[in-house]
């Protein structure tokens, strides 16, 4: 039996009269990766925040390495060796500082660093931290100029740099591509070997399969299952977390109607083979690919965020070359953007206002907004997408990450579109909800072309009629979603096909 690092008993936490954690007991051992599974809003992040000193528990005890542990803030937790990478990526980096400073931020907080910051020493130590994680980012770049994936990697690299006693990772891979995720896993393996206790939260089955020594399932703020017999029974774990089995409903690819969106010889990256494709009425097409595959380029060109470099596009047979977002919207091209915190969520608004934001005009009666109609529309979406909340008037900031994501998707499903673009729509969404949303999207697919951009193959398979793989700006493969050849897709994505 390994040494116990963290013991918790009877942890309760509620926000107002919303009881989020209702008596959690668990024990985490040295050199073990414990995966916390739970539907969106189950209370995982709340538990993490209690462990890391961000929230205080209402009741319950915690012991760290046998000694009572009740951190009052992040500082105390870190001093006792509990290091956390939070779910919200923006909570992990300082946009106005450069990469080197971001990587070294936690060391700056300790007196051990000395008073004066030597730029040279800082850079040197930062590059050590970066190397340990296999990070290849210019240390002088301002973090504000980096992609979300890079930011995520920076906060992970910083947390993993010095073997803590307990490392908590809350959905660290939600914005990472497969290659980056694999680098993360290697480092996790190394830390595990060094005897670090690790709590890992993810909705990605592939992560869980790869890492878990033990799975603890959380449902409605209580532990609903613990799995530690190898091989881990994932199906049972999913059942425990959702309270029901999920049926891997096989997709019956629909026959596409008349083409709505066509691309002809569009160049996505310099020197790459031009892309031509067509998406028909009622069809759901998933695009997937690794970093630099040109997915962003495609999405941004389609939504008017990037000028069309060459070639032509058509919507409903009419030439389409949007110069900005508004022109795209005017043609019925909607997009749910990725990275909701920076690009989607209006933090000061409640759910209803967030949901109806693009279509406020439709909710205007006379000169004024009709709060009643906003509410009606929002409540309908909350029901359809299974958003876990107290009411439509909840502030968006109080929702769990996955539920915020559902609001972001719901936003664009309220009104019929011609082309619906969903860029990483499942960031942080649990498997059960993912399937519900997938079903909803497929059910309403008639009358529009739906393009889904995902970096996880699983997600593509769950939703699409057709899967297109991009590699370095060109189409590397295409399959109808029936009798999928997974190996071929993986090979095409990595350019080995």
């Amino acid at each position, binding site marked *: 039996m390994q040494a116990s690092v963290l013991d918790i008993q009877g942890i309760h936490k509620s*926000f107002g009269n919303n009881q989020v954690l209702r008596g959690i007991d668990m024990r985490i051992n040295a050199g073990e990766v414990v995966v916390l599974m739970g539907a969106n809003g189950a209370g995982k992040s709340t538990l993490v925040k209690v462990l890391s000193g961000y929230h205080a528990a209402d009741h319950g005890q915690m012991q760290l390495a046998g000694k009572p542990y009740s951190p009052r803030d992040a500082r105390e937790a870190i001093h006792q060796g509990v290091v956390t990478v939070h779910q919200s990526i923006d909570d992990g980096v300082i946009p106005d500082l450069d990469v080197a400073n971001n990587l070294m931020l936690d060391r700056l907080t300790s007196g051990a660093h000395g008073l004066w910051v030597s730029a040279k020493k800082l850079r040197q130590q930062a590059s050590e931290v970066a190397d340990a994680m296999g990070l290849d980012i210019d240390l002088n770049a301002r973090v504000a100029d980096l992609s979300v994936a890079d930011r995520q990697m920076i906060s992970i690299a910083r947390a993993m740099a010095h073997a803590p006693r307990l490392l908590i990772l809350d959905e660290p891979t939600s914005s990472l591509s497969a290659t980056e995720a694999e680098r993360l896993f290697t480092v996790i393996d190394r830390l595990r070997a060094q005897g670090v206790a690790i709590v890992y939260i993810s909705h990605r089955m592939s992560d869980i399969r790869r890492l878990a020594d033990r799975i603890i399932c959380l449902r409605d703020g209580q532990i609903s299952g613990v799995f530690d017999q190898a091989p881990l029974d994932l199906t049972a774990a999913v059942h425990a977390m959702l309270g029901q089995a999920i049926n891997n409903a096989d997709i019956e690819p629909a026959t596409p109607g008349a083409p709505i969106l066509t691309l002809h010889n569009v160049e996505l990256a310099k020197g790459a083979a031009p892309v031509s494709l067509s998406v028909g009425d009622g069809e759901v097409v998933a695009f997937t690919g690794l970093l630099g595959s040109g997915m962003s380029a495609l999405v941004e060109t389609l939504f008017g965020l990037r000028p069309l470099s060459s070639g032509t596009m058509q919507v409903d047979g009419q030439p389409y070359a949007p110069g900005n977002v508004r022109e795209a919207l005017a043609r019925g091209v909607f997009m749910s953007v990725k990275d909701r915190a920076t690009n989607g969520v209006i933090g000061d608004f409640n759910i209803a206002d967030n949901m109806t934001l693009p279509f406020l005009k439709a909710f205007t009666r006379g000169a004024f907004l009709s709060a009643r109609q906003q509410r009606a529309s929002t409540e309908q979406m909350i029901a359809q997408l299974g958003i876990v909340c107290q009411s439509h008037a909840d502030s968006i*900031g109080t929702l769990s990450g996955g539920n915020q994501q559902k609001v972001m998707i719901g936003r664009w499903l309220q009104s019929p579109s011609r082309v619906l673009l969903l860029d990483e729509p499942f960031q942080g969404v649990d498997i059960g909800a993912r399937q519900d949303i997938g079903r909803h999207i497929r059910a309403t697919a008639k009358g529009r072309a739906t393009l889904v951009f995902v970096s996880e193959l699983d997600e593509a398979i769950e939703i699409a009629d057709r899967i297109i793989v991009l590699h370095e700006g060109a189409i590397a493969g295409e399959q109808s979603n029936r009798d999928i050849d997974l190996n071929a897709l993986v090979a095409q994505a990595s350019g080995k096909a």
Partner: protein
Amino acid sequence: MALVVYFSLAASGFANPRSAVFVLQSVAITGILALGVTTTLVVGGFDLSIGAVATTSLMLAAYCMVVLEQPAYVAVAVCLLMGAFIGLINGLLIVKFRIPDLLATLGMMFLLIGLQRIPTQGNSIATGMSLADGSTAEGTFSAAFLWLGRHRFDLILERLIPVPVVVFVLIAVAIWLFLGFTRHGRLMYAIGSNERATALVGAPVERYKIAAYMISGVTASIGGILLAARLGRGDIASGNNLLLDSVAAALIGFAVLGAARPNAFGTAMGALFVGILLQGMTMMNAPYYTQDFVKGAVLVVALMFTFYLSSRRGQSGRH
């Protein structure tokens, strides 16, 4: 508010319609300016130039009528255009040149303070003043213009409600409805909270931001017009405290009703609050220097409660 009750008891003659109107009248102009600032606060900006826009408008109105001998409606129109134009420039500096709002509007403030004095070499404008070419200015403030500052409508009592109060109330209601209940207002709040996300739902963010500064410029110029109409001359020294007092009103407005965000109703209440406080203290014969002290103390204490309590409530909040 408890304040009203307290002063009613403490100072005889505090609680009557005339007294209420005095308070309204004394806060009308600051309040109008504060409403403009509120609009810029909503889009996440700030307008430091309002005080200067108001005094520029005051001087411009006087210049139009006294030196250029134009009728009232021309003076009013010119001032409103000027306000809109300054707002446009502020907006462009912020949106197109990416100058931080405080900085852009501070520069504009200095610029205007200088500019408004150049045509008259720093002198106040009054009928009969001598001009640079040796002649004297013959124009006058027309009765129609002075009406704007001095007429009082009958309501219950005869000649009770002065025009500036009516204008203040109208603007407050208009901005309250606009910000709170139209889609434009909602989008402006969205811009203030997450500009990028708002742009990605197709809102013309730059245009809204410019519009906010234009609204602020126009309201400030209205404030200036009313001030000119009340004073009956282009006095350069007036309007010194307009900026700070209206910023105070707008910021106090955050706290009203625990909204913790800029809102027109709160701003109007904030302005009133300060007005009642000062009026009450004046009636109680408090020396002028204690008024600043009490204003500050009440402000701090009131805000301590509001924000402390609201942060307890939504502990998690944005923080």
